[in-house]
C-alpha cells in the first residue's frame, strides 16, 4: 500500500492548493498556517478554496458511505486548476488519493475526476521532500523529538519516511526512537468514541512509549493522532507536548522574531 519510492513527482509548481482538513480547521489552525508558511517560503503561492469542509473520511470509516460520498463530492470540484493539492494530514491525503476513486467507482465521469484529483494530492511532508525538495536549516537549540506517524500516513502515503527525512535535515534535532513506533495510537476516528476502553489503552501505551523515549516533545503530521495523544497527556498531567510537524519545522527554521 505504501507508495514511497514508486510515485512520479512533478517539477516545482508556481501555485498549489491547500486542503486544510476539518480537524486543523477547527482545532489546530496554526498547523495549517505553518504549512502555508513553509510552502510560501519556497516561492510557491498557496490558494485556499474557502468552500472546503472535510474529506468525508469520518462518515466513510464509520459505515455511512452515502454521507461520505456527498461530502467527498462537495470537495471534488474545489480544485479546478491543475495545481497540486497539499494536505497537511496523511490520513486525509490517503482518503483523497486512494479512497475517492473507490467511492466514485460506479460513475465513470466522477471516477475520472476523482482519479485526476488523486493524482494531484500530496501529503505535506511528501510535497516538501519530493516536489519542493526543501533544504531546511535549523535555527533552534539542540533537542530530542519523537516522531509519531499516523497509520494511514505510514501505510498509504509513506509519511514516516518523508517526515524522518525532513527531521534529519535539522542539525540540532535528534530523533528519539520509541517502542512499537509503527503501532496505532488508538485514535481511529470514531473508534475512539465507540470503543473508549481499547482506544484509551492504546493511547496510554503510545504515550508511555513516547515518554520513555526521552524526547522533549513529539511531532506528528496528523492532527487526529496529535489531539488523541496531547489530550491523553494533558489528562495524565504529563509534561510532554505534541506539535504538528508543520509547526515544528516552521518554528525550528525561523528566527524567533519572524515566527508569526
Amino acid at each position: 500500500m505504501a507508495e514511497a519510492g514508486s510515485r512520479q513527482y512533478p517539477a516545482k509548481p508556481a501555485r498549489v492548493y491547500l486542503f486544510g482538513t476539518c480537524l486543523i480547521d477547527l482545532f489546530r489552525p496554526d498547523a495549517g498556517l505553518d504549512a502555508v508558511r513553509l510552502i510560501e517560503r519556497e516561492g510557491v503561492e498557496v490558494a485556499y478554496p474557502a468552500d472546503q469542509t472535510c474529506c468525508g473520511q469520518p462518515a466513510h470509516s464509520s459505515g455511512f458511505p452515502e454521507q461520505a460520498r456527498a461530502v467527498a463530492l462537495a470537495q471534488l470540484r474545489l480544485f479546478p486548476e491543475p495545481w497540486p493539492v497539499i494536505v497537511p494530514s496523511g490520513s486525509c491525503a490517503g482518503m483523497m488519493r486512494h479512497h475517492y476513486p473507490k467511492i466514485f467507482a460506479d460513475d465513470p465521469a466522477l471516477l475520472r475526476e476523482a482519479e485526476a484529483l488523486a493524482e494531484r494530492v500530496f501529503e505535506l511532508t511528501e510535497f516538501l521532500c519530493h516536489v519542493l525538495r526543501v533544504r531546511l536549516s535549523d535555527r533552534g537549540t539542540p533537542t530530542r523529538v519523537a516522531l509519531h506517524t499516523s497509520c494511514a500516513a505510514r501505510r498509504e502515503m509513506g509519511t514516516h519516511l518523508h517526515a524522518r527525512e525532513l527531521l534529519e535535515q535539522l542539525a540540532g534535532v535528534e530523533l528519539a526512537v520509541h517502542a512499537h513506533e509503527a503501532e496505532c495510537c488508538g485514535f481511529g476516528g470514531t473508534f475512539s468514541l465507540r470503543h473508549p476502553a481499547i482506544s484509551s489503552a492504546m493511547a496510554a501505551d503510545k504515550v508511555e512509549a513516547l515518554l520513555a523515549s526521552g524526547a522533549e516533545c513529539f511531532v506528528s503530521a496528523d492532527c487526529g493522532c496529535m489531539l488523541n495523544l496531547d489530550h491523553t497527556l494533558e489528562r495524565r498531567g504529563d509534561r510532554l507536548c505534541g506539535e504538528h510537524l508543520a509547526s515544528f519545522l516552521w518554528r525550528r527554521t525561523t528566527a524567533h522574531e519572524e515566527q508569526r
Partner: protein
Amino acid sequence: MSARPLKFVPASEFRARAAAAVADPQLRQSFRRAMDFLIERRAAQFPDAEVLDRQRRLAEQIRQYTLARLPDLLEQLERRLVDNGIQVHWAETAEEACTVIIDIARRHSAKLIVKGKSMVSEEVELNHALAAVGIDALESDMGEYIVQLDGEKPSHIIMPAIHKTREEIARLFADKVPGAAYTESVDELIGIGRAVLREKFISARIGLSGVNFAVAETGTLCLVENEGNGRMCTTVPDVHIAITGIEKVVEKLEHVPPLFGLLTRSATGQAITTYFNMISGPRRAGELDGPREVHLVLVDNGRTQAYADAQLRATLQCIRCGACMNHCPVYTRIGGHAYGTTYPGPIGGIVSPHLLGLAATHFMPTASSLCGACSEVCPVRIPIPDLLIRLRGEAQHDALHGHQPLLGQGAARNPLLDLVWTAWAVLYTHPQLHRAFLWLATRLRWLTPPRQSGWTASRTPLKPAARTLHEHMTSRRR
C-alpha cells in the same frame, strides 16, 4: 474470563469484556509478549520487502484464481477424493456438519474422538454437539488440550493457550490430570500432555483433523503442524474425519508451496513446520497402518454468502495464518476471548458476520482503529480495513440496490446515528452553513462540554481554537 458457547454476544457484552481484558495486566502482558515475539519472528523471515511483495501478490493471485473457479474445483476435488477412496460429505450449516460427523461416529460405535487442530470444528461447535450425544471429543494439540482441560476456548487461532501463563498451566495440570505432580518445567508439562494423549491416540476409534489445503488435481488433503498430533489423529485411529471450509481448495499441487511457504512464515516465523502431512486416501492394500476410512466434510456455514459479493469474496482468500491478529493493536490489547467468536481479531471481523450473521457480530467490524497493520502483513493481501468498513455499513443500512441482503443486514441500525450523520453531511456539503457553524463553534468555545462521550474517558475535552483556519486564511488574503 470464562468461555461459553459463543453464538450470540451482544455488543454491550463485547465492550464489557474488552474493558475487563484491558484492565487485566497479566493478560495484557501475555498477549503483548507473545505478539511481539511472533511479529519479530515473522519479520526475520521476510528480510526483502520486494521479494515479499512479489510472493504476496502471487499468493493472492493463486487464491483469487482458485475462488474464481470454486464450484468446478470443488467438484473436481470430490471426484479425485472419491477415486482415492475418501468419502466426501457436504454441510450447509454448522448443525449439518455436526450431524454428518455424529452419524459416522455412531456407525463405528465410537465413544471417543481424538482431535487434531481444526478451527472449522470450533466454528461448528462440534465438541458440544458430540457431548450432547455422549461422545467425548478430546483436543490433542497441546494448546487446545490445555484450554479444553480448563473449559475454555482458544484465544488465538494458531496459539490457542497463549493467554495462559506457565504457572497457570502448571496448576491446571496438577489439578486436572490424574497423577500429575505440580511442575513449572515446560518440558515436563509437555511430557505430561504427551503421555496422556498417547494413550488416547491408541484407544480412539476416530481421529479428526482440519485441512490447510485440499488439492483438486490429486485429491490430497494437506495438514500443517509442528507437534505430530495431527499425524497421530490421521494415522493411528481406524477412521479419519477431516473437516474444512469450502474455500480451502486449490487446483494444483504446485499451487501449494507458495501458499504453504507464506502460511508458516506469516504465522509463526518458521520457514516450514515440522510436519507437512499429505493424505490422498485411506490405508491401501498391503499397507500395515493408516486409517481404514477417510472422510472429508466440506462446510459452507456462511461462506457462500461471502462468495456472492465481489468485494466480500476476498474474505475467502484467507489461509488462517493469524498474522493479522498478531499485528493488530486491538487484538493485542484484549486477546481472543473478548471477541466471543471462534475467529477473533481482524480476520474474525470479516469472517464472523458471514458465519453468525450481523445481528450477533455487528460489533466486530467496529473493533478496529482501521490502522491497516492487518492488511499490510496479510500473505494473501486481503484488504481487511476496506472489508471492515463495508461491513460497518451493511450492519447499519439496508442492502444496496442489486445486492443480496447479508444475514442480519441492518441489525445495528440506529435512527439517532442516522440523523447525526445526515446532519453532518448537510453541514459539510453546504459551505456557507459550514462556515457559520465553525464561527459559532469558535465563539462558543467556552461552552465546550467537559464530558465528551468516550473521548473524555481518558483525555481532556476537545476545545475549538479561537479562530478557524478558514478565518485566518480569509484575513491573510485581505
